[in-house]
């Protein structure tokens, strides 16, 4: 394991200090907590937006704190959901009396910890709503689908909407709409190594790829021989398009998300093919995002997220 770190046990703490120091104009850290909040939180009159999860997915989620995005991000240990008391602190720090929407990725740990935090918040008289994002179509059963890169689209769209005055109920409904209108799927070429364990999360042969790997290296749908960028794009996008049930004339937003060590060059090569396929199917791309939004440390690979737009989503699309 070759990493620019000091002590595996301190990576999250030191990273949070680094983020807070570098972006002190936008962000502050709640002293003693693994929580970063928007400097001017709570924003009077606005529904608070909180997300979080295990660390190692940077820039998710702290990198999405700011205007038209999150009010707070809670960081767990690397790839480990944060505990409810951490989440509760975030909720308390951003609630201005208008309630707080929690954006949760569908992992057992995250769901349970956010549930407990919501119960604790209720006990303190703070209203919360939750949206559990399940965009990863690599998992067959819809209820078990993991939350992956599409989560960022929820941050951005709902973030814009609450800034424009949506109340908690409306924000939750919109979040469910975004979440229900998008599907994602990824491919991995190389694993990542969690600092505490020091060992790669999985192994792949030099000519192998894994389709549908989760953002912590959970197994995907299938291992097979590495193919060309175009062939992989076709395979992933076809699955995503079929699951999303897009059809001719639809408008979409596309997110090509790098998993950590895949050069932007490769992401753009894949995007190129994706737009070609969509155009062939008479599906238009209103917004393209290509880059690292939800990483898995230094995992190599990428994912596609397709969001089907309608007039409501278009209104708040950044």
């Amino acid at each position, binding site marked *: 394991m070759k990493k620019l770190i000091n002590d595996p046990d301190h990576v999250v703490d030191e990273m949070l200090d680094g983020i807070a120091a570098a972006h002190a104009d936008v962000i502050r850290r709640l002293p003693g907590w693994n929580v970063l909040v928007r400097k001017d939180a709570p924003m009077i009159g606005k529904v608070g937006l909180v997300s979080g999860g295990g660390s190692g997915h940077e820039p998710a989620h702290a990198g999405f704190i700011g205007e038209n995005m999150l009010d707070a991000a809670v960081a767990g240990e690397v*790839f480990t*959901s944060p505990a409810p008391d951490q989440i509760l602190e975030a909720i308390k720090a951003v609630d201005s009396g208008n309630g707080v929407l929690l954006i949760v990725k569908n992992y057992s740990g995250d769901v349970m910890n956010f549930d407990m935090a919501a119960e604790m918040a209720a006990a303190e008289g703070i209203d919360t709503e939750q949206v559990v994002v399940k965009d990863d179509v690599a998992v067959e059963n819809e209820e078990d689908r993991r939350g992956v890169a599409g989560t960022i689209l929820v941050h951005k769209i709902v973030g814009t909407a609450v800034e424009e005055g949506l109340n908690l109920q409306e924000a939750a409904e919109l979040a469910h709409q975004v979440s229900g209108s998008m599907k994602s799927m990824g491919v991995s070429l190389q694993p990542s190594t969690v600092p505490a364990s020091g*060992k790669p999360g999985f192994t792949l042969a030099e000519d192998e790829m894994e389709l549908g790997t989760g953002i912590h290296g959970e197994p995907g749908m299938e291992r097979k021989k590495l193919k060309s960028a175009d062939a992989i794009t076709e395979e992933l996008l076809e699955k995503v398009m079929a699951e999303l049930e897009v059809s001719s004339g639809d408008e979409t937003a596309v997110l090509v998300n790098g998993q950590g060590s895949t050069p932007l060059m490769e992401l753009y090569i894949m995007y190129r093919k994706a737009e070609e396929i969509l155009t062939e199917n008479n599906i238009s791309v209103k917004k393209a995002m290509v880059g690292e939004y939800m990483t898995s440390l230094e995992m190599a690979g990428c994912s596609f997220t397709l969001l089907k737009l309608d007039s409501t989503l278009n209104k708040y699309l950044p």
Partner: protein
Amino acid sequence: MEITSAEIKRWLFMANEKMQYNKDYLSELDQAIGDGDHGHNMARGFQETVESLKDDNEEDMGAVMKSAAMTLISKVGGASGPLYGTAFLKASDEWKGKQVVTAGEFAKGIEAAVEGIKTRGKAERGGKTLLDVWIPVLEYVQNQELVPTELTKTAKEAMEGTADMTAKKGRASYYGEKSTSHLDPGAYSSYLLFEALAEAVTKEEEG
């Protein structure tokens, strides 16, 4: 047979020792069908639990369990934090205000814990989780006098049984069929927990 708050405390201390000792092994089990952090999570949580109990003269079993629950909830994280935390919290409710509990009262605590885990994890028996150790242990303490060696045996066999199951909940569920033949890390840490309980009440008898 009765269980005292001193035994409960000893239980937690011995559980911590086992979590520390088996930290890498638990994480290895989790590496195979999860994300390799279960040992780290449990070791971190129990370490903190005993730290906060060390200089505490609390005699109320419920209060001891509640303090442990709160520490586990805030220090373990992941899936196991809320699950162990909720289990301990529910048990603490049953044992509130008591310095000693009867076998029946003890079983009631474990029953509440199991209910807590089920509700929190939306899980059932047979899903290859820590429940597959907790439920057999519950049935044992509900129906028999607590014989330490028997308790350990029950927990151990139940833990071993998870190797035959296919995971339905948590991270391991993504491994589908591939999870079969592996032990569930949460089941293993629960086996360690009940082994610690067995040893904690044995020591008492010897003492």
